[in-house]
């Protein structure tokens, strides 16, 4: 009885070395039953491990200490997670961040700074009040620190460790981790506030289709009509709200390890967190580009809160119209600070 089993085992060993995709298909049916050493009722460690590896199962038992995680004897998915963290995330992160940077450089070189048509008018209009701006900057600054400290966790050991040596790097990473943990709170708060403040103006509608079809005016020259936020900005909004929300949610799973979930959950949370984070970073790079060197006049919206009338007309024609109407009524009616809605 044992001899054929050993044969199966040997076969499996060879198969395991073969193409990863083929193995489960070939072997699973054979292994449907736990293979036992019939003479003594023994389980073969090696076989069980192999099956577990192939199926991604945990070999789990009973343990007397209360820590239920300790009851996992062998958890082969740790290997998959390692693969994700060291390889997949590296690639996705690398491509997303570096790719976006490269795109922006190319775009800048090709298109240069998008100028205000007709130059600044000199007249301004209030676009974001102090509260909106403060919240934006709180979110933005914490995001940047989160991003840098996060990226450091993923890439620092390759990029910074050789430069600074282990002590300094570990110290910095430790600080980064603390910052990452604590700044997650203002960041998450910012996301929530942004959501509440701006959701009204970010519901997608028919205008957005047109705007998108027209390429947002970035590619061409004409400016499709847009309300307070155009489709591009809405995308940033939704990326921020949804992506940020998920990053935060997954992040909190990570901050309170095993409080909400088990080992697989933790691994999944890290996968979600990592991928969304790097994608968000890429998206935000684009946003930051437009908000600064990419477009003349854009920064003011978040700087002083006052945008040039011409800029506003170009990008948010419908919004400007409404604002003008409202401004009049405000003057007529009881005093109400502009843009307070």
């Amino acid at each position: 009885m044992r001899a054929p089993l050993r044969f199966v085992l040997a076969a499996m060993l060879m198969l395991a070395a073969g193409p990863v995709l083929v193995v489960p298909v070939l072997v699973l049916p054979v292994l449907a039953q736990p293979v036992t050493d019939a003479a003594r009722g023994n389980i073969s460690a090696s076989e069980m491990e192999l099956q577990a590896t192939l199926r991604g199962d945990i070999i789990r038992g009973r343990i007397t200490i209360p820590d239920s995680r300790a009851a996992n004897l062998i958890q082969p998915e740790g290997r998959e997670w390692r693969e994700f963290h060291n390889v997949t995330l590296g690639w996705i992160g690398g491509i997303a961040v570096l790719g976006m940077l490269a795109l922006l450089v190319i775009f800048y070189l090709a298109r240069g700074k998008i100028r205000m048509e007709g130059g600044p008018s000199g007249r301004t209009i209030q676009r974001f009040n102090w509260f909106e701006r403060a919240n934006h900057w709180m979110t933005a600054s914490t995001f940047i620190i989160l991003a840098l400290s996060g990226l450091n966790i993923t890439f620092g050991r390759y990029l910074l460790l050789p430069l600074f040596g282990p002590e300094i790097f570990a110290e910095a990473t430790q600080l980064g981790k603390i910052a990452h943990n604590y700044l997650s709170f203002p960041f998450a708060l910012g996301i929530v506030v942004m959501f509440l403040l701006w959701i009204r103006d970010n519901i997608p509608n028919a205008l957005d289709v047109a705007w998108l079809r027209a390429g947002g005016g970035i590619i061409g020259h004409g400016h499709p009509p847009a309300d307070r936020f155009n489709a591009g900005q809405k995308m940033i909004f939704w990326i921020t709200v949804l992506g940020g929300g998920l990053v935060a949610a997954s992040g909190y799973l990570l901050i309170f390890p095993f409080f909400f979930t088990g080992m697989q959950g933790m691994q999944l949370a890290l996968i979600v967190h990592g991928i969304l984070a790097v994608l968000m970073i890429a998206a935000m790079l684009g946003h930051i580009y437009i908000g600064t060197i990419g477009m003349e006049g854009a920064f003011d919206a978040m700087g002083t809160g006052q945008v040039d009338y011409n800029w506003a007309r170009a990008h948010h024609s419908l919004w400007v119209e409404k604002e003008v109407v409202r401004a009049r009524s405000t003057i007529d009616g009881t005093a109400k600070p502009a843009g307070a809605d």
Partner: protein
Amino acid sequence: MARMKFLCDADRCIECNACVTACKNENEVPWGINRRRVVTINDGRPGERSISMACMHCTDAPCAAVCPTSCFYTTADAIVLHDKDLCIGCGYCFYACPFGAPQYPRVGNFGGRGKMDKCTYCAGGPQADNSQAEYIQYGANRIAEGKLPLCAEMCSTKALLAGDGDIIASIYRERVQKRGYGSGAWGWRTAYRQDVSV
């Protein structure tokens, strides 16, 4: 140089927890940190086996691969150790470890974890051998004293073998040949990509 490994002969292990307690005693490991533990699979059913598990000191150690601060190092005896001064307690090694070996004290904010702790193969840490500083952070350095891990030395049934991988594998192989059965070396496939074939 020897390639140190652990091998738990599950046909001998009786879940007596001597290994676990010896580790606590020798390294003064605090409550809640279990460098070694015993897991019983198929509890209460024929084929029940208990396996004592700690860090296996893997070949191409996954913990080392994912550590953001690269604080792991492998000794000349192939023992996988880490430097607590560089550890930031992120838990990545725990997520990657196939054996759940890394352990964390509950300290600080949130569910925050302190420096990772794990089985050192009773080989201390990066400081000077058998120094106070080494002991405080890592426990005993029996390897430097020319001894083997206490968990294995005290194992009631001599189920837990520690020492040069080739030697313990041959001890195990001999046992299996003699008795005609054996459930194999738990964790070896995963840790060393190797099996003790008989």
